């Protein structure tokens, strides 16, 4: 504890310099926090993921269709416990800019597989029983003020109906919540049958088929069996884990992960150089004081610890401030209705916070290492000859 006071005395030597260093670290971790939260919200927006779920898509590209018949054939593959399928709908509400993350699904199996979407059982049953039903996420429902039982015109920018229009009247029969805060509730689901019977082209095809394997350890074997079954057919398949598929889906929207790595990596290295350099300078200025402390009987190790303590404290103080503001900012952003669909799931998760604290510790230790080494090497006699 007495060392803490010496650490503070060291930092208090040049308050302006200490303040600027804290500020630099603060900015770096603010950026990191916001970007990492944004990335995790994208991952959630792509859909929940579970360890024993697989996604079967067309080998060419996941935007290419698969024959509907594949779903029942996959059901018979060894190791497959459950199957569902879905089709991208390209939905919007009234105007194109009111984009909706909309999927046409097989309602019974889909709601069984995706237990992350929770709703009262009677709502689920009503949704399954009526062909013109939609199930909407809480976020979307609140954004547009939708109520259960309300009829809405759901438009598609892809699927033209046989009558030539693009408007699909539907009735809201279920509003789902997420099982936990990580589950995005920004999607709209309608019946696949309703779409398939009404659309003017693309009939009897689906976008992707979802598989639940009997056990996660079976994933690779099941994926191989499925892909082997459709090898050399007109529509070859590629079966991926749900996580891998979601990651690929996000890649379509620019590689956010790489951007985060680039931006925070550059910030981290810059801060490392700034803090490391400033601390090395600070220790050089304090050579005389360090020599006095050694004369009084402080060991080199203890002095080294104090120096590392200073950089650690700097990094943690600035870093936690930055992370705190990032948390505040993401809460505000995700609370704005117009942005909700994209930033709805945006928040500082425990994993983000944990990795940020890890980076702070790394920053503290790395920037403290060389100054501490220099401080430990200060030769008392030589230092006194200089002063």
């Amino acid at each position: 504890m007495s060392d803490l006071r010496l650490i503070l005395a060291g930092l208090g030597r040049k308050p302006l310099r200490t303040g600027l260093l804290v500020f630099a670290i603060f900015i770096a971790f603010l950026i990191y926090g916001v970007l990492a939260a944004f990335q995790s919200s994208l991952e959630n927006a792509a859909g929940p993921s579970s360890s024993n779920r697989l996604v079967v898509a067309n080998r060419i590209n996941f935007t290419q269709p698969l024959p509907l018949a594949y779903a029942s054939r996959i059901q018979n593959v060894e190791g497959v416990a459950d199957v569902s399928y879905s089709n991208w709908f390209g939905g919007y509400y009234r105007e194109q800019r009111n984009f909706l993350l909309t999927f046409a699904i097989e309602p019974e199996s889909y709601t069984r597989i995706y237990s992350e979407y929770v709703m009262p059982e009677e709502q689920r049953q009503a949704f399954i029983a009526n062909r013109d039903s939609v199930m909407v996420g809480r976020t979307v429902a609140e954004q547009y003020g939708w109520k259960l039982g309300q009829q809405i015109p759901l438009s598609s920018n892809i699927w033209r109906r046989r009558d030539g229009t693009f408007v699909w009247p539907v009735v809201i029969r279920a509003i789902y919540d997420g099982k936990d805060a990580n589950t995005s509730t920004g999607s709209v689901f309608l019946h696949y049958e309703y779409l398939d019977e009404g659309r003017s082209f693309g009939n009897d095809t689906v976008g992707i088929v979802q598989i639940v394997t009997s056990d996660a350890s079976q994933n690779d074997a099941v994926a191989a069996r499925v892909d082997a079954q459709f090898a050399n057919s007109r529509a070859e398949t590629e079966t991926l884990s749900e996580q891998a598929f979601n990651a690929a889906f996000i890649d379509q929207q620019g590689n956010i992960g790489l951007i985060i790595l680039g931006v925070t990596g550059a910030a981290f290295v810059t801060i490392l150089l700034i803090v490391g350099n400033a601390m090395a300078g600070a220790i050089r200025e304090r050579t005389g004081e360090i020599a006095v402390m050694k004369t009084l009987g402080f060991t080199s190790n203890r002095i080294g610890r104090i120096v590392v303590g200073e950089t650690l404290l700097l990094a943690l103080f600035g870093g936690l401030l930055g992370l705190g503001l990032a948390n505040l900012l993401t809460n505000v952003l995700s609370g704005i209705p117009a942005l909700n669909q994209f930033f709805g799931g945006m928040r500082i998760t425990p994993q983000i916070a944990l990795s940020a604290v890890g980076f702070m510790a790394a920053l503290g230790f790395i920037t403290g290492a060389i100054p501490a080494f220099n401080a430990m090497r200060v030769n008392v006699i030589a230092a006194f000859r200089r002063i």
Partner: protein
Amino acid sequence: MSDSDLIVLRNIAKTYRRGEESISIFSDLNLTIPSGDFVAMMGPSGSGKTTLLNLLGGLDRPTSGTILFDGAPIEKLSESQLSAWRAANIGFIFQFYNLMPTMSAARNVELPLLLTSLSPSERKKRVKTALEVVGLDNRAGHKPKELSGGQQQRVAIARAIVADPKLILADEPTGDLDRTTAAEILEMLQLLNRELGKTIVMVTHDPAAAKYARRELHLDKGTFEERLT
């Protein structure tokens, strides 16, 4: 040697290497300082006074010979053992005070106590006493910048005595002070020696300052010449 000898130097040699050449400061120095002594060390510049003080304080090691402190050789101790030994036995006073600029007088005085196992309240008491001894208890919260040179040196003296060391080493403690202030500091050292029984070795260039000691040692060309005051 007798039981009351605090320091015994035996056949001390010290040479510095500067590249190829080696400079011999002393080749065979012998000295005994009894407990309770107050020695003024004088001698021309470059004669090795600071070097000797560094050897006595365990900051430097002799090239050969032995230094007994309380009967035990210190030149064999490791770096960290020497640190602990210094903390327990030696108080240092410097020409330029060498206080920590960001710390108050009280914090500066407390510094050596951070190396002990004393509780914060005990430390506080000791600091107060030490500042009272040097007559600065009313300046405890002042930073070094807010104190005069003489006051800073008194804080440094308080720091040197707070852990109750046996030996006080002072390298030109009045070298940066005017006559009157210097006299105050020297009277204080005399008081520490006479009243508290501290053994003091003080390096000085000033014959008037040396008069405050019990005896003077003149170091020249590697040997001592003694004069009683």
